[in-house]
């Protein structure tokens, strides 16, 4: 295992249904993302990008193949090799097209909850959440509920939440789709900053061709297969 890798996937295959209704969503995908690296996954709708992302996010196990995150083998086919929920808690961060902030928690609490889930004491979690919001430039909106934040601010809080537990890997699914180009660029720069400063691997599924120069490498998916 390569300990400098944020994630390695080997021959990942996902098949939905069986018999006549069988659909191969992903076939023999191999990928390695180094720590501190930001990569893009491109491809048309239905190409299997989200399937790969959810498989790497340990929320939709593959039918076959292996996943190693931060040097730890976590999935062998559909078979979990670790407690997946606990592993997600410690090692993965997620950012989506919608920020998916919890509406009854304010910005700082949305970050704090990710830390408290990881058994960080409340006072320390609050302090760390404020630090992250400050790092991402939304400290002045810390006490605001999500519906009082702009789309860009919400997405920054979501990124702060994803970073809270210093994950080995951040998975982002169309994180700029709901943002204007300026804010989209800001978020992508944020991912680069996080990856380079904190050594996390970042995988971004995107359709946004304008942001391609923000990535270290780009991959294209088509018909469930990955190509550079």
């Amino acid at each position, binding site marked *: 295992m390569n300990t400098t890798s944020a994630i390695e996937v080997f021959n990942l295959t996902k098949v939905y249904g069986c018999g006549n209704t069988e659909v191969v969503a992903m076939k023999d995908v191999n990928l390695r993302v180094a720590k501190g690296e930001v990569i893009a996954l491109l491809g048309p709708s239905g190409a299997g990008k*989200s399937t790969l992302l*959810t498989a790497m*996010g340990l*929320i*939709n196990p593959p039918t076959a193949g292996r996943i190693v995150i931060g040097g730890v083998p976590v999935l062998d086919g559909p078979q979990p090799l670790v407690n997946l*929920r*606990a*592993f*997600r*808690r*410690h090692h*993965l961060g*997620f950012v*989506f097209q919608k920020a*998916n902030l*919890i*509406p*009854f*928690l304010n910005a700082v*609490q949305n970050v*704090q*909850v*990710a830390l*408290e*889930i*990881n058994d960080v004491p*409340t006072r320390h*979690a609050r302090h760390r959440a404020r630090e992250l919001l400050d790092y991402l430039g939304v400290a002045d909106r810390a006490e605001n*509920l999500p519906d009082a934040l702009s789309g860009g601010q919400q997405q920054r809080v979501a990124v702060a*939440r994803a970073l809270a537990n210093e994950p080995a890997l951040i998975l982002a*699914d169309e994180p700029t789709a709901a943002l204007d180009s300026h804010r989209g660029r800001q978020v992508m720069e944020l991912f680069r900053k996080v990856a380079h400063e904190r050594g996390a691997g970042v995988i971004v599924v995107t359709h946004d061709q304008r942001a391609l120069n923000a990535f270290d490498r780009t991959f294209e998916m088509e018909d469930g297969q990955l190509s550079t």
Partner: protein
Amino acid sequence: MNLAAQDIRHNLGRFALTAVGIGLLLMIVLGMSGIYRGMIDDALVVVDHIGADSWVVQRGTRGPFAEISRLPANLEHRLRAVPGVASARSFVSHNVQREHRGKPLRMNVHGLAWPEDKGEWVNLIAGRPLSQAHYEMIADTSLGLELGEKLVFAGDTYTVGGVTKGMVSSGGDGIAFFTVRDAQAIQFDLSGEATRLERAARVQRAVGQDIGRAQPLLLERGAGLSSGLPALGPPMVSAITVRLAEGADSGAVAKTVAAWPDVSVHTRDGQVQLLVHGMIDKARRQLGLFRILLVIISTIIMALILYTLTLDKIHDIAMLKLMGARNSMIAGLILQQALLLGALGFGIAWCLGAWVFPKFPRRVLVAPEDLWGLAVVVVIISVLSSLLGIWKAMRVAPNKVLA
């Protein structure tokens, strides 16, 4: 950070309204047990307070409360002769409904054995016990009569000399205490024509009996006042209350009296059983069943509310699961809200009940054990009703966030 508290704070209005709804339901549950307990307390108020060890009633009856009992008043003299009996007093009980201030006035008339019993044992809140043999009464506050108020019964004017609180019959009518003689006068108040017809009928009855033929003077008396002819007059009292001498064997006294062919005897506990398991038994069971139904309905409503609250948060729960939240954290969120909802509902039920129940026409008696019992029931239904929401939350897949 407490997620349940944060969620409630965010949806405070909806949560408060839901708690009020649950509180109203629980208040009805509390009210049902209060009505039940009040009914028992009302039924036993005289038996508990009058201080009688035994009740002697008409043979074969379960009187004087559960059914009508008629006894000659002079039976009390016979009872006083029984070894172990300290006192024997006449007792009269019947209902009357008259017009007063243009409204129906329904009361339970109790006759006290003047002068031995002036009603010192009743729960007076104003005035005094009976102070004369006639034309005075003690009225319960539920009758709406005031101290010093005058009422006319059977052609005589009675003055309210005392006012009691909480002294009502098992039927919910306020009790008015008179002397036995006055209670009888009210009970047997007849019009002039009815009196003349009764006297004529009485003479005819006497003619047909040996005593009438053997003592012709009785025929002459039969045409006069009823009180002048007790042997042929109507039955006089409802029961005789017996108090035993200190150290007397109650079983032996009861055995002696029960051997008489014209009377039945009930101990104090026996009288309580007759009331609780006979007279108010069906009402008691009906209230009990309603209470059970209401508890079930409250559980179902709470479960549906909590299920709906959980559905509203299903996306957030999926997000928490995606972040790796433990099941105990998510179950705790729902369970804490259920318990808080139950606790608030209980508090609202308690406060509203304390305000509303005294305004009910019949007594609603909420005992501490009823409150504790309801608190336990609320905890149980809160836990049960949260299970549906927890079940739903446990089934949510983390990838629901992507939907």
